[in-house]
């Protein structure tokens, strides 16, 4: 419209040249601008699409929210959801210890196991000991010698040690501060402190071991030593010596689950190191709460019943 008005005012030949130049310039400018704008938009759209594709790729690491000191936060109430406490190796179903009293209650469910790569690499003597542990797992401790050498410590409400505490069928809570990570387990109200940024020495051996931790990227790596040799790995009698060294790895995988790995080294019992792994799930219900399971009172008749007044 505007061009037609200009057409009406200028002398014919000058107008033609001037008009030609002006229109071409305008058209070129507009073309260039339009193409540049379209390219910029296309670039933005494509890069966003590309970013979305990358974020959904399963191999990409999850970046957990940070604590104030910049570390991935493991704070919260967590629980394993597996059958490892029955038997960490692959196993079929089985009866409870007293089927005539309990029926199907407390019968054992089957599981593929949490141990990576085949049967546990016991030495021949240690394998015999494991089988003896299982056969005598519910022997009542009618003497101090029996109490100290025989029977599943879980039945006595003894602290489960590491790694068994992690996969007891009860929650645990992680409290993460810069200097230490405190983990409290509902079973037997067992606690352990993981020291970060310093390496104090264990004053003595203990039931929950001595834990020194450090961060590797998104993973908390914990070295556990000095654990008393009276804890078991499960109800199947899998055991260790006082030479046990556990290397745990806690890696956040999403907002509501971690991957837990534990490498076991014990040259007095096993011919080589071996590893277990399992997810740990956050307890997400409203008002999820750590509630003590102080089970000593439930173990007393089992342990001391033979000492009652007649």
């Amino acid at each position: 419209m505007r061009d037609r008005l200009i057409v009406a005012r200028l002398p014919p030949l000058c107008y033609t040249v001037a008009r030609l130049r002006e229109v071409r310039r305008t058209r070129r400018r507009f073309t260039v601008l339009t193409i540049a704008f379209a390219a910029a938009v296309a670039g933005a759209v494509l890069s966003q699409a590309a970013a979305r594709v990358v974020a959904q790729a399963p191999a990409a690491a999850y970046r957990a929210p940070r604590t104030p000191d910049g570390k991935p936060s493991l704070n919260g109430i967590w629980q394993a959801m597996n059958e490892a406490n029955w038997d960490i190796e692959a196993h079929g179903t089985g009866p409870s210890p007293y089927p005539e009293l309990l029926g199907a209650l407390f019968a054992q469910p089957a599981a593929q196991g949490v141990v990576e790569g085949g049967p546990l690499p016991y030495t021949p003597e240690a394998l015999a000991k494991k089988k003896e542990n299982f056969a005598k797992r519910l022997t009542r401790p009618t003497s101090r010698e029996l109490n100290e050498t025989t029977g599943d410590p879980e039945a006595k409400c003894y602290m489960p040690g590491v790694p068994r505490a992690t996969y007891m069928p009860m929650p645990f809570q992680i409290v993460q501060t810069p200097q230490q990570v405190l983990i409290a387990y509902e079973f037997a109200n067992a606690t352990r402190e993981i020291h970060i940024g310093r390496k104090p020495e264990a004053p003595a051996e203990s039931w929950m071991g001595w834990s020194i931790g450090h961060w590797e990227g998104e993973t908390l790596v914990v070295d556990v030593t000095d654990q008393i040799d009276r804890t078991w790995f499960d109800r199947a009698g899998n055991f260790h010596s006082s030479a046990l060294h556990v290397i745990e790895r806690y890696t956040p995988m999403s907002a509501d689950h971690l991957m837990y790995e534990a490498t076991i080294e014990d040259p007095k019992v096993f011919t080589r190191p071996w590893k277990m792994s399992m997810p740990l799930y956050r307890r997400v219900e409203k008002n999820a709460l750590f509630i003590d399971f102080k089970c000593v009172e439930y173990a007393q008749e089992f342990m001391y019943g033979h000492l009652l007044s007649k």
Partner: protein
Amino acid sequence: MAIFSASDERRFMPWRVWIAAISVVALATVPLAGQSSGKPAPASVAKPVKSVNVVKKTPWGDPDLQGVYTFSTLTPLQRPDALAAKVALTEAELAEQEERDAENRVAEDRPLAPGNPGTYNNFWTSNEKGRRTGRSSLIIDPQDGRRPPLTPQAQKLRDQLTDEAAARRVGTPPFDHVIYRSWKDLPAYTQCVSRPMPRQSQAYNHGLQILQVPGYVVIHYESMHDVRFIPLDGRPHLPDNIRLWNGDSRGHWEGNTLVVDWTNFDPRQEYEGAPQGNMHFVERFTRVDAKTIDYEVTVDDPTTWTKSWKFLLPWRADDPNYQKPEDLYEYACHEGNYRQMEDALNGSRVLEHAAGK
């Protein structure tokens, strides 16, 4: 004559318009920079509130009570009769109290009379100067520094239990003994079931740690490796039918003081000689200085005491034995208790046999 007619313009314009239009539509699908797709933007961390007193705060703005402490003290819970109306002790009196304590500890190591098996001596106790509060009692209310009287029902219950235990006593003093029919005749602490809360003075393993994370204050006690999780989010207490040896705690801040409401105790636990099932405590934790937390507890149980009472016990970070988290040792009470239970119960069986019971 125009070289380019209006119709030429119409032929050239539309494709530019189309590209512009498509670009505008495409732009609408691109999320703004800084927002990850699908998730809301994270809330910013609350900045610490600057108070006039410049109280230490955690990075998320709660008063910072964190540290490793001991609660051991020379001050008794109740004011001794001899001190009657005296609330505070003079320097001279405090020095005399410490001297007497030192003499007692030396006496504990003297050779024992024949037949006396002995008891805890100096080896077991963790003692050092600076454990005095400067007061004659931990109890600050009532004014006389002593617990209020028992209610009639509580007195009746106590008399019943005393009579019942006396009926199980054999032998002649000073070597008379109460017979334990089962583990239940021993205090819950001796059974390593649970040690009474709130924790007051003890001879050893009296360390603890306060840790804080957003939404919780956590107290880790060395003794019994107990952990109390104190939620700060205003949630209700557990239902009344859930009774726990360490009760159920709910906390909130009043200024710089953590106030904790503590209920749901197991009625089989005894505190200050009375069953704990109806007890209700309100704790107040206030940081006094870099090394001290004032720990004040109001004790309320109308079925046991005629009125509520209050004690004040400082938690101190100046004990050389309790400076770092690793100074809290594992207290494997039950794991190490088999022999004691066996000896105590076997001993009672021997006494029963000797007494012809």
